[in-house]
């Protein structure tokens, strides 16, 4: 590309000369990003090779290096994309639940469903990112901060004299994340459901006190019973 063309490129809309090729590139990129997360979540970040990624994506080595350049860059792109999707999904579930308490419950159940359905991706996003470090870890911090800020939104409804410590949002989010990571590390992702009553008690009680904590713990138990009746495996 010529120098002057480079200078104006960011202002132009992307133009695909061949839509079919562009679609195929996008699809391959998406498949590769999913493959790197699946490989990392299955083998561990250190043990994941480009070959392991390609075995899962079905792509070619040359295309991989053309699109991403390295395993590290591929993981960073994949991480940024998927953690954003997960975050948006959880915040969306909370926002449409009809209140703060149902919102916390919806976000937690949404997270648990994701962990149970996509344990390898969840392991890459929550556990192995700490091995990868770098920009992906910074994205994780941003995502946790957004979730903490959302859960902290209930402060508006609390008497300032009874407000919990400033760090409560990060404390709660960190506790939830650690609980999920423990189930993933144990190789039993469905086990996260067992902790729903405790986590609801913990999250809601940290802001609204014991009475609300007990109500939410009971509501979580009922939810697990209904889930079991429907044939779900609450763990």
């Amino acid at each position, binding site marked *: 590309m010529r120098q002057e063309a480079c200078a104006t490129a960011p202002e132009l809309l992307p133009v695909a000369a061949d839509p079919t090729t562009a679609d195929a590139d996008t699809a391959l990129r998406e498949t590769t990003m999913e493959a790197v997360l699946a490989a990392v*979540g299955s*083998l*561990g*970040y*250190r*043990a994941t090779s480009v070959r392991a990624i390609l075995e899962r994506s079905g792509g070619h080595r040359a295309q991989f290096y053309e699109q991403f350049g390295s395993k590290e860059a591929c993981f960073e792109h994949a991480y940024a994309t998927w953690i954003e999707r997960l975050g948006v999904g959880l915040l969306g579930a909370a926002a449409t639940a009809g*209140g*703060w*308490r149902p919102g916390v419950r919806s976000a937690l159940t949404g997270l648990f469903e994701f962990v149970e359905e996509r344990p390898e991706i969840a*392991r890459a996003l*929550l*556990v*192995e990112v*700490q*091995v*990868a*470090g*770098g920009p992906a870890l910074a994205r994780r*911090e941003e995502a946790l901060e957004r979730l903490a800020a959302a859960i902290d939104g*209930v402060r508006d*409804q*609390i*008497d300032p004299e*009874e407000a*919990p*410590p*400033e*760090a*409560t949002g*990060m*404390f*709660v989010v*960190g*506790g939830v*994340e*650690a*609980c999920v*990571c*423990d189930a993933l*590390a*144990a190789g039993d992702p469905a086990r996260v459901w067992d*902790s729903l*009553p*405790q*986590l609801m*008690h*913990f999250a809601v*009680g*940290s*802001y*609204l*006190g*014991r*009475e*609300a*904590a*007990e*109500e939410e*713990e009971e509501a979580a138990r009922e939810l697990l019973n209904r889930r079991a009746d429907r044939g779900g495996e609450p763990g």
Partner: protein
Amino acid sequence: MSHLHLVNPEPRGDLFEAELAPSAPLPRGRHGIPADLVNAHQRRRLVAAMSGALAEHSYARVTAKHVSERAGVSSRTFYKHFGNLWECLLAAYEDAGTQLCAEIESGCAECGGLSPLEGGQSSTRLQSGIDAALAFLAVEPHLARLLGGQPPLEAPALAAARRSLVERLATMLRQARDPADDAIRPPGLEERLIDAALSFVSAQVAAGNSDLTRLGPELTELLAGPSLTPSQAR
């Protein structure tokens, strides 16, 4: 530098044990130190070097060579003590966890002990234990990162060690609290609180907070769990 008598002394394990500085390398050449003490000293240095090497190189890049260089021993010596990097990391994690628990018990002992049976107020016991933990981790921030981080998939034994530590600290938290609270708390709540506290402190270190001791009052309030505050929001 260790302070040793170097002129081929009679092997006296107790004397050497008392005089060997844990972080200093052993003197070169013939020093007459019993082999079992040399082994124990090397192992201790490797375990101590592990968390520093991890902090410097990160999980993604740390190697057994980084650890052995930091400990001042050869790679061959490293593999004499540990089968691989993760075994050394596990030893470092367990050692750090043991130190943390000892510091908390010691802190609580100063205010009458961990258990309510030993007297003292619940809030004072909790505060003392947390202050002692934070004082220890403030001096050893690498250990705060190690204890609070999520173990990699390649080290499943480390995840089990983390679980054991969380259970041990949760038991201490239960002991430190007012026993009347037990009836109204769901089983496992303390484990969630400890998980959250370890992550919180680790995140503070990662964010560059160099004065962990200032977190004491806030962390005490958070670990005390839900209060009797009436519910307000729906």
